[in-house]
């Protein structure tokens, strides 16, 4: 099972000089998925990605990427099957766009010249301009081109739309979706932008303080998470719900709102016993799930 996964991380821990960046992170990314890795700034997203790429080593735990240990003897061959775009779109400032492409392509035997030509046209990249003279948007497009052309089985992107304006963000997301639709590539991308994850991801994991707190298919999460709103005649009662999956209870005047993560049936039965005037079961967005699962205290 583990080898069939594009990414399989099991109980990853990472300490940086006394700071626990990862605290037992477990993650499974099926092949062919467009996987959103959501978390607040500093939640451990970049550390996870660095471990998956073999750029950093886990203090303990086990990671497999395309069935291979990213810091093991096959790491170099593994990186030939991967593409990575870092948050800062790190490229060589002293090279031109053309030089960057000519530099990168020989490392990847499956380099897609057709895809290169397609994105050169689509992104309108100035071939003879130095990377240091590119705008943030252009630099991102170049980084994405260099990743998409590798013929990689797995694309790992760290905050790919960071710093982009809405138009550039949309262009980048559409390029990603189009690329995945055209092939068998798995995309694993980190973000703290809920809207973009919701727009393109089919699976998500939410990381908070170094552990995955929610993971699954986006549709399944939407199905299992429900908001139950109860309205009472007078002041809403202060009750502790015993039904499994009740994650949050909020009282405001006559209204009591529950957030349930394992479907609405059992919490609903318990809620009805309180004799509310009305009961509504409402769908929840990924943002609600994110805000519910990510603790806010620092």
């Amino acid at each position: 099972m583990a080898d069939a996964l594009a990414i399989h991380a099991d109980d990853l821990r990472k300490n940086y000089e006394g700071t626990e960046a990862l605290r037992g992170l477990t993650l499974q990314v099926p092949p062919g998925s467009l996987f959103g890795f959501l978390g607040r700034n500093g939640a451990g997203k970049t550390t996870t990605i660095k471990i998956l790429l073999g750029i950093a080593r886990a203090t303990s735990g086990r990671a497999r990427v395309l069935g291979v240990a990213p810091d093991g003897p096959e790491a170099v061959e593994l990186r030939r099957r991967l593409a990575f775009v870092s948050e800062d779109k790190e490229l060589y400032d002293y090279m031109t766009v053309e030089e960057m492409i000519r530099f990168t392509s020989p490392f990847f035997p499956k380099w897609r010249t057709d895809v290169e030509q397609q994105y050169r046209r689509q992104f309108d990249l100035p071939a003879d301009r130095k990377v240091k003279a590119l705008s943030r948007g252009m630099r991102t497009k170049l980084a994405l081109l260099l990743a998409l052309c590798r013929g990689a089985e797995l694309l790992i992107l760290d905050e790919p739309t960071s710093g982009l304006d809405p138009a550039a963000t949309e262009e980048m997301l559409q390029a990603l979706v189009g690329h995945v639709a055209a092939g068998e590539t798995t995309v694993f991308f980190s973000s703290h932008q809920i809207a973009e994850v919701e727009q393109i991801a089919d699976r998500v994991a939410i990381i908070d303080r170094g552990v995955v707190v929610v993971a699954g298919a986006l549709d399944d999460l939407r199905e299992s998470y429900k908001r139950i709103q109860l309205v009472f005649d007078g002041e809403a009662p202060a009750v502790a719900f015993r039904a499994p999956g009740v994650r949050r209870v909020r009282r405001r005047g006559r209204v009591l709102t529950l957030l349930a993560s394992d479907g609405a049936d059992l919490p609903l039965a318990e809620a009805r016993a309180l004799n509310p005037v009305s009961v509504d079961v409402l769908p929840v967005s990924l943002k609600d799930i994110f805000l519910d699962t990510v603790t806010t205290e620092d």
Partner: protein
Amino acid sequence: MLWYKAWLETRWRFFIGLAVLICSAAGAVLTYPKVLSLLPLVPTVDVGGELGRRVREAVELSREYRGYIWLQAFRQNLAQTGTLFAVLLGTGGLVSGTSSLFTLSLPVSRERLVGVRAATGLWEWLLLALVPSLVIPLLSPAIGQHYDVVAALVHGLCLFVAGATFFSLAVLLSTMFADPWRPSLLALFVAIALGVAEQISRVTASHGLFAVMSGEAFFRAGQVPWVGLLLSAAASAAMLYGAAFNLANRDF
């Protein structure tokens, strides 16, 4: 393509170093007639102690063109300025700066990254050591003098092999610090400390790294300083191995 990257990253340091060292070697040659004309004035300078001894030694050596070139070019200009550029060639470009994650995500082992970077730098340092050395015999006829090409090559190779120690130290330090400044400053500090130690100690003065760099044994006795060269090469190899080990085991 890693070679191309390493070349792009170091080419300006290389070209500037080459220009400075060629000018330095050419300057030493072309000023010899002026130095010769000033030599009769030197006996009036009366300075005692170590400084006086050095001044008198410099005067004696300068009476002969071969001695003057060794003192001025190989022991001073090329050794000192060359050390600076050997250090500069060894720093930066490995995983410093803003592009380290891109480099590390390429399908290349970290040992190969160090190997290509070191080989490119050493090749450039070889040219920095040899070309200015060869400028001396080429330019000497312009002032009516002769300098042996083989001697220039031997001094150039001594400069290269011993100077590579500072290059390798800079490469090693570059794998320990993210910025290019601390490796440069630390390596230069070590070079200055060694230079000062050779100045104040008679033991290290003839067996130290700068003595090997200048080919002092070859100049004084016609003997290539094989032991010093081998020790320098061994130290360089150990430091480059250490750099590869450091990089391979470092977290980013």
